[in-house]
Structure formats: structure tokens, C-alpha cells
């Protein structure tokens, strides 16, 4: 049996495939969260960026794949609506997380400096998250419109 035949072979029925997809989805998000936690802990422990480069690269690769695939499929999110208000609120969560991280990371420099650093980083993160979400939302809406209104006439449009 060659590789093509092996990959074509399907031992699962439709319910088993759905179950497998759920398991794989849980596995992906579990690993994603654990990798993020590992990166946060390592950075707080004073690891050099070079020491975290491989994990960071894998984390960003997985995240980018997920975002780009979703956008190409015209999918936004299961729970959140694509609008500016939601993006602003969600970005606050990102900014707050980085603010807390900054407070802990720079605590040794003194409270004043730590708070200042944390505020600057938190605000910058908020701006960056908001800008990225807005850009992604724009791309999502464009793609969603394309998929909903295909240019070529097909049976659905007749």
C-alpha cells in the first residue's frame, strides 16, 4: 500500500469523525494554553528570549494557522460578534493580562517604575490587540461577503 492509498483509507464513520475532531480540538486548545502558560512562566523566571524562541515560534505558528484558516473560511467566533465594541472590550483583557505580567516582571525595580512600565505595556498591548482585531474583522467581513455572494452564477443563485 502506498502513502496515497494509506491517507485515503478511512476507518471511521461520520459520528466517529466528529468525535475525533472534538478530541483533536480539545487537544489543540489544551496544548495552546499550556504553551502560553509555559512562555509566561519562563519569561517571569528570567529566561532569555533566545531560550524561548522555539516555543514562541511554535506558539505563533499555531496561532497564525488558526486565525488565517478561520478568516479564509469566513468564520469569526462561536460566541463573540464581530464589532468594534466587542473588539475594544476583548483587547482590554489582553492589555490587563500584560499589565499584570509587567507588574510582576518589573517588581524588583520598585513599585513606581513597575507600575509605569506595566501601564505603558498594558496600553500598548491594548492598542495592538485592538488594531489587529479590527484588521482581522475587516478581513473576515470581506471574506464572509465573498462566500455569501459568489461572483460566478451557480445553481444556488438561479
Amino acid at each position, binding site marked *: 500500500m502506498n502513502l496515497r492509498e494509506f491517507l485515503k483509507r478511512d476507518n471511521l*464513520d*461520520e*459520528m*466517529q469523525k466528529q468525535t475525533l475532531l472534538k478530541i483533536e480540538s480539545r487537544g489543540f486548545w489544551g496544548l495552546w494554553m499550556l504553551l502560553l502558560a509555559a512562555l509566561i512562566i519562563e519569561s517571569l523566571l528570567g529566561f532569555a528570549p533566545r531560550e524561548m524562541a522555539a516555543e514562541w515560534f511554535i506558539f505563533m505558528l499555531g496561532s497564525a494557522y488558526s486565525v488565517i484558516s478561520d478568516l479564509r473560511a469566513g468564520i469569526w467566533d462561536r460566541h463573540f460578534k464581530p464589532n468594534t465594541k466587542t473588539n475594544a472590550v476583548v483587547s482590554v483583557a489582553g492589555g490587563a493580562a500584560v499589565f499584570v505580567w509587567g507588574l510582576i516582571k518589573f517588581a524588583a525595580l520598585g513599585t513606581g517604575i513597575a507600575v509605569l512600565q506595566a501601564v505603558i505595556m498594558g496600553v500598548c498591548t491594548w492598542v495592538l490587540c485592538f488594531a489587529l482585531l479590527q484588521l482581522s474583522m475587516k478581513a473576515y467581513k470581506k471574506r464572509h461577503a465573498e462566500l455569501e455572494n459568489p461572483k460566478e452564477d451557480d445553481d444556488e443563485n438561479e
Partner: protein
Amino acid sequence: MAKKLKLKAARAVRDMTQADLAAAVGVSRQTINAIEKGEYNPTINLCRSICRVLGKTLDELFWEE
């Protein structure tokens, strides 16, 4: 999801076990069991295959009042 009692009854009339029906439509027994218990919503293709094997229409087996 409601239990598919009509499916279970139609299978019993034909004297088929869940395993028999599963083999006839090309799925696992656990899938047929999940459909009958209302735990899994089958695709239209699988519904049609089940109807063909049991000699029933989609309405007779899967329509819910």
C-alpha cells in the same frame, strides 16, 4: 434530542440488531445506538442509507411532530 423510537421499531420489525443495521449502512454499532438514543444527529446521507435498508421513507423514520 428526542429518542428515535420509530427507527428502533422499524429495525425490530426487520429483526435486525443494531450491529446488523450498522454493518448494512457502513457505520459502527455505537453510531446506530447514539442515533436511537437521540445523542447523535446523523447526516442526510446516513438517514437515507438507513431508510433504504429498512424500507422506510425519511418522514416515516426521522420526522418529529
